[in-house]
Each structure stands twice: as structure tokens, then as C-alpha cells.
């Protein structure tokens, strides 16, 4: 045994060295075709894979792989061609002509023609589809006409400067008109598009299987290559527990995860095997809206006092470990036309106290909360546990604590999504944080135009700050109709100034949208439209 030991050991050592060397081989610089990517989402599984129905972010994430829109956006915020090669607005602004690519077919063989555009817009506007996002975006569209086989004319009731932004979103993607004729149930299970992948199987509560579209060749103008995707297959799983999700990524069981918690982002930065994609969502920033429609926030001084009493900076720093940057704007930092004003949001307890005194809240009760005419300064804050990550819920707790020093009693009510919508519909809130993702500054119209206080049939309304300012309304309407880019920018700036200076909102940070992925997955990028990752250019260096 001993005589053989040394040569055996050295042989083993050499073998190990060689094995070690081969796994540390230099990485490929050329994309490799093939392989299966496993994506694990922390969101709930969508009930319908067709983003026309409803229209939320989890749908957008998965639909980005198999559906395409008429136009896209590049990193600089410019609209670029995708399924439409060019577009022209009429002089009176009441119609747009879109010229489509003539070489595209859907995965069911139907060719892409003007009829597809018409069918999709009709589908989105049909109440039976129950589209919320797409429907709202197309409110000014009255119809679609044929110009020629590959050109469609979209008719509007009024000029719409936000139309291109809206059409770039996955919720208005173009599906096969033949497929749209099927029942909604069937179409929800396997929507048919023109994308680099197609839905081949949906094992509910298990996974969605997407496979490469062999005939694909219609990437947006800013894509990394042409022709079919590199990946052969994508398996889309749902892992709601964030700790398990991260553990699965580290173990290599999954390749990409979303809804990444701030502490794991920091941990991943120290880990060479994991990379990070930070893709803030467009639309509104993550903010707290103050209900100016009822007491005590109908008084602007009280609103400002609350905002001055909230120490957000320290909370964001400690809870997000530097992965989230404080925002002082109503809009996401990816919006070119966003306006921000830091001076309005300084943490200043003295100023808060003075304002509350001015507003008549001069007495204090035994616990230190302010009282006026026998009423305590109490604020209801329903929190949606579905939409606010734990770090954000802790942020609200910290705001609650600093607001207490000024004399505000903030009652946090963590609620499930359904009860949360119920509380909002009943006007049972003084503070609320509701995200809204949309491409373009037109989101300000949805959120702050007084029409936004009129509830939809479901009872939901988007203008949760209950801002009703005729001057703001006029600015927003004008901005949505003008096509002069400079005028548009000036109008939106004025609008945002009104919103911020009226202390109707307390901006927190961008809508966080972080992804972690194994370092051997190359070529992932986020589409600059709604910041969903696309795996068209992705390949596995394994």
C-alpha cells in the first residue's frame, strides 16, 4: 500500500489539476447556440399569458420573449423601429400611418399585415378582453384603416403625443389575428406572436416552457444580432420565497432571478459567479401619495409638515444598502422629461412643527400626538404586501417613527391585494404607495389629472392624491396633444412643478427592478421600453 501511495497520489493530483484547468478554461467570446435557460420569478404566476388581458408586470416579463410591439425604444429614449419600419403623424394630428415590415410571419404562419394591427387594437379595446393597461393607452384611438397590405392608418379623436410611447409597451404587443379569434381561455394559454421564442407548454403552478422560434428575424433596431435566438429553450418558473429563490440561483438550479432583495444584491456583488442587472422601471417613481381629498391633508401646510417630518434618506440608505437611489421626482429616472427638486424634501422637524402650529394643530395629547378641536392627527396608511417588498414596508415603519416626533399618528395597515384595493375604493386612506409603470411622461396625466379621480367600474381610480387642479389639467391635456418636443418638455416640467410644490407626493426611489443571473449567462439586456429583460441575445457560456 505504501509503495503505491506516492505514485497514485501524484497521479491523482495531476488528474485533479487537469480537471481544475479544464473547468477554468478561457471563456468563449463567440455566442454559442443551444442550451436551456431557467428563469425564476418572485411574482405570482399570471393568470393569462396574453398581456392584452389585464396588463401587469409579470405578464410583461414573460411576454417580452414571445411577443413584439410596433416600435421599441433605445437607451437614449428615442423611439426606434421594430415591427413597424416607419411612422408618420398627419398634420392635424388625428391619424398616424405605420409602415410594417413585409417579411414577418407569426409562429402560426399568419403573415404580418395591416389587418394584424387592426385586429390587435380592436382586441385591446373590446370590453370582453378586460384589458386595463392597453385599454387606457388607446383611449383616443377610434379605428384602423388600410393604406396598403403593409401599412395601417390609426385614427384618433384628438392628437396623442403619447401614442408611440404606448405602442412600445409589451401590453400592446401584436399577436396573430388568427390566434386572437380563438376563445380567450385558449389564447391565454398559448398566445401567438412574432417573437424570438414561442410558448410551447404551460404547466400551471410549475413552469412555462418557451422554445426558440426557428424562423425569427425581426429584432428591434438596437438588438445585438439578427436571426434566430441563441438559446434553444427557456423554462420560466415561479418561486415566491425570496430566500429560496436566491439560494436556488447560488446553487445553479436556476439561471436568472427577479424581485431581488437589496441584501442579496450586495451579497451577489461579492460573488464572482453572479452578475447584476439594474433596470429601473419607467413611469412614476416609487412614491407616497397624500390624499388631498379629505382631512387632514386637504390643508397644504399639513401635507408639507408631514413631508418635512419624514426622514427618508437615512431609511433608504440603511434598508437598501445603497442599491436604491433617493428620488426627488414624480417620474422614474429613466424618463428624459423628469423634473426633480431636492430642496422641497429636506428632513426638517422644526419646519414641520412650525407648519403644524400655523395650521392650527397646536395641542398635544398624552402620547405626543397633535390634537385640534378634539381630533387627533391620525393618518391611515394601507400597505399592499403584494406590491411593497419587505424593505419598503420597513421604510414605512421608519417614516412612521419619524413622523411621530412631529406629532403625526400613522397607522400602518398591511393588507392583501384584494383588501387593499377595497380600502382605496372606499377612500379609506390618507397615505398610500401605488406603483405605476408606463412608458413616457403621459403617466402624469393618468395619475394627476382630475379625471383620474373618477372610479372605473371596478371602483379603482388612479389619481390617489386626489389632485384636482384645473391649471394642471390644462397643462397635461395640452402636453398630450402637442407634437413639438420642446413645447412638450416645457409643459411637462411645469406640470411636475405643480405636483411637487403642492406637496402632494413624497418621492422615495425609482421603481426597483433588479435581476441577478449566473455569470456564465451572457448577452442579457433590459429592453429600454418597460425595462424587462430580453433573452434574444442571451447565450450560455457552459
Amino acid at each position, binding site marked *: 500500500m505504501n509503495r503505491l501511495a506516492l505514485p497514485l497520489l501524484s497521479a491523482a493530483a495531476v488528474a485533479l489539476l487537469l480537471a481544475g484547468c479544464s473547468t477554468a478554461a478561457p471563456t468563449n467570446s463567440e455566442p454559442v447556440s443551444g442550451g436551456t435557460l431557467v428563469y425564476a420569478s418572485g411574482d405570482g404566476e399570471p393568470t393569462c399569458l396574453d398581456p392584452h388581458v389585464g396588463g401587469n408586470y409579470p405578464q410583461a416579463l414573460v411576454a417580452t420573449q414571445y411577443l413584439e410591439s410596433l416600435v421599441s425604444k433605445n437607451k437614449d429614449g428615442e423611439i426606434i423601429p421594430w415591427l413597424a419600419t416607419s411612422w408618420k403623424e398627419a398634420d392635424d394630428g388625428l391619424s398616424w400611418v405605420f409602415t410594417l415590415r413585409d417579411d414577418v410571419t407569426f409562429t402560426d404562419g399568419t403573415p404580418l399585415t395591416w389587418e394584424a394591427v387592426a385586429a390587435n387594437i380592436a382586441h385591446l379595446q373590446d370590453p370582453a378582453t378586460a384589458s386595463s393597461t392597453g385599454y387606457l393607452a388607446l383611449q383616443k384611438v377610434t379605428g384602423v384603416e388600410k393604406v396598403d397590405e403593409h401599412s395601417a392608418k390609426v385614427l384618433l379623436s384628438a392628437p396623442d403625443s403619447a401614442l408611440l410611447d404606448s405602442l412600445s409597451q409589451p401590453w400592446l404587443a401584436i399577436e396573430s389575428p388568427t390566434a386572437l379569434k380563438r376563445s380567450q381561455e385558449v389564447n391565454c394559454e398559448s398566445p401567438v406572436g412574432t417573437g424570438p421564442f414561442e410558448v410551447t407548454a404551460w404547466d400551471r403552478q410549475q413552469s412555462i416552457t418557451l422554445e426558440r422560434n426557428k424562423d425569427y428575424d425581426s429584432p428591434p433596431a438596437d438588438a445585438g444580432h439578427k436571426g434566430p435566438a441563441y438559446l434553444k429553450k427557456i423554462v420560466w418558473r415561479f418561486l415566491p*420565497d*425570496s*430566500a429560496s429563490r*436566491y*439560494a436556488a440561483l447560488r446553487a445553479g438550479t436556476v439561471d436568472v432571478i427577479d424581485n431581488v*432583495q437589496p*441584501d*442579496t444584491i*450586495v*451579497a451577489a456583488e461579492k460573488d464572482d459567479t453572479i452578475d447584476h442587472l439594474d433596470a429601473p422601471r419607467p413611469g412614476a417613481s416609487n412614491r407616497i401619495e397624500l390624499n388631498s381629498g379629505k382631512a387632514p391633508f386637504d390643508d397644504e401646510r399639513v401635507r408639507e409638515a408631514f413631508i418635512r417630518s419624514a426622514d427618508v434618506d*437615512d*431609511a433608504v*440608505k*440603511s*434598508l437598501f444598502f445603497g442599491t436604491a437611489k433617493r428620488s426627488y421626482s414624480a417620474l422614474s429616472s429613466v424618463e428624459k422629461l423628469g423634473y426633480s427638486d431636492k430642496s422641497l424634501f429636506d428632513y426638517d422637524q422644526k419646519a414641520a412643527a412650525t407648519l403644524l402650529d400655523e395650521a392650527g394643530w397646536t395641542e398635544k395629547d398624552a402620547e405626543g400626538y397633535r390634537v385640534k378641536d378634539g381630533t387627533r392627527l391620525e393618518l391611515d396608511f394601507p400597505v399592499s*404586501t403584494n406590491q411593497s*417588498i*419587505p*424593505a419598503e*414596508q*420597513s421604510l414605512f*415603519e*421608519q417614516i*412612521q*417613527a*419619524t413622523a411621530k416626533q412631529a406629532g403625526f399618528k400613522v397607522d*400602518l395597515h*398591511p393588507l*392583501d391585494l384584494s*383588501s387593499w384595493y377595497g380600502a382605496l375604493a372606499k377612500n379609506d386612506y390618507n397615505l398610500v404607495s401605488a406603483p405605476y409603470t408606463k412608458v413616457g411622461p403621459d403617466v402624469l396625466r393618468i395619475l394627476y389629472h382630475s379625471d383620474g379621480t373618477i372610479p372605473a367600474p371596478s371602483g379603482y381610480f388612479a389619481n390617489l392624491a386626489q389632485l384636482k387642479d384645473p391649471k394642471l389639467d390644462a397643462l397635461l391635456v395640452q402636453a398630450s396633444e402637442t407634437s413639438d418636443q420642446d413645447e412638450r418638455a416645457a409643459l411637462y416640467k411645469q406640470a411636475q412643478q405643480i405636483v411637487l410644490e403642492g406637496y402632494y407626493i413624497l418621492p422615495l426611489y425609482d421603481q426597483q427592478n433588479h435581476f441577478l443571473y449566473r455569470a456564465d449567462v451572457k448577452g442579457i439586456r433590459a429592453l429600454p421600453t418597460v425595462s424587462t429583460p430580453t433573452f434574444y441575445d442571451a447565450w450560455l457560456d457552459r
Partner: protein
Amino acid sequence: MRRPRPLELIAAAVLLFLVLAALFPSLLAPGDPLAIHPAESFLAPSWAHPFGTDESGRGIYTRIVHGAGPSLVIGLSATAIGIGLALVLGLAAGLGPRWLDFGTTRFVEVLFAFPGLLLALLFIVIYGPGVVTSTIAVGLSTAPGYARIIRSQVLLVRRAPYLEAARVLGRGPAVRVFRTLLPNLAGSLFVLVTLGIGQSIVWASSLSYLGLGAVPPAAEWGAMLSAGRTYVASFWWMSFFPGLFIVLSAVSTTLIGRSLQNRVRSA
């Protein structure tokens, strides 16, 4: 009286600590469980903070001590609801006429058909999540088990001579129940309560962990677990220590309950 075994002494000491924590938390942990210190968030266990700090810089040890009261109250309430309901059912079955016995036993069987968490989940899907509903839900779920035991105890005691004697002596039924029956049941009831508290704490905190019970910022163990769950990969102490105390409560109450059971049996 047997001399208590070392394990029972340890369990009693743990229980004593928990009761002290529930009644006089500031004695054992002078800090403020709700005060926020963002600069000290997510600190690992150290001398200053024996169990580390949470996401808002609050000491976990302080919060566990101050959370003992609410957590024990939840356990007690759920057990009280369960045993209260079980007493009604068990007494009705054991003392009443045959048809009442038949009916309540069948009813208890029906409740048994909803094993464990299922009855609690059904209750929660109807009345919504929260501390109150989850406490009631846990109480309801434990009631059938206790009812069955109380019923057999009652039936045993029913044959006992002193009950017969009381009837012969002309004491009315209510007197018989309260003066003779309940005191004799007291021993087993006490054991059940002791065993039940630990179990109820475990079930209630499980519901909180699933997001259906207590929620932050309450310094209640289940809520702390729920809050710490996202950070378990990086900051394991946030979930580990509340969980540990839940286990300690359950284990010590079970050990004490068992030794009481043995004493009652041998008495």
C-alpha cells in the same frame, strides 16, 4: 412527590424566564423595542446586541423579550378558545343523554376531518388574515382534539363514586358538575392547557410566517419571523432567534406538561 429531574428544572427555569419577560420585560431588556436606529441595522450578534439587530436597528434580544407577552397571550388565548369550546362539547357529550353524546361526537368527528391547519386556513380565507383571526383559527383547530379527551375523562369520572354520592345526597346537577366534576377534571385540564400553549404558539407563529397572522412592526415572535424570512440568507439571526424561542416555549411547556401528567396519573 418525586424529586424533579434536571430536565424538568431547566424547562421550569425557561418558563419562568418567559413569564418574567411577559410580565416585566423592562427588567430583562431595558431598551425600547420600537425605537428605530437606521445606522445600526442588520448587525450580527455581538456583546452590545446578543442576538443582533433587525432591519431598523432594533435589538432582537430586546424585541424577543418584549414580544414574549404578546406571543404568550396569543398562545393562551388560542388555547383558552380551544379548551373552552372543548369543555362545552366534552361536558355535553359526557354528561348529557345518549343522543347528545352521539350528536356532539359526530360533530367533533366532522371537525376532525379538517386536519391541522386546514380549518384555520378555511377560517382565514373567510374572515381575512390578521392576529385576531389567526388566534381564533388556531383555537378552533385544537378544540376537537381536546374535546375528545375531555369527553373520555368526563365519562371516566362519571362512574366515580363521589359523583354518585353527590347525586344520592340530593345535590342538583349544576352543583354536581361544578363542585365535584370540574375539580377532578382540573388536573387533566391544567395539563392540557400547559401542553396546549406551546402547540398554539407554534401554530400561530406558523400562520404569521405564512403572512396570515401577526405582522410587523409588532414585537411578536411570529411577526418577527415573518419579517426576517426574506433576509434569512444574509442575516440569519433575524429569523433564527425568534424561532428558537418559539421552540423553547413549546418544548418547555411540553416537558412541564408531561411531568404534570405523570404526577396526576400517579397521584
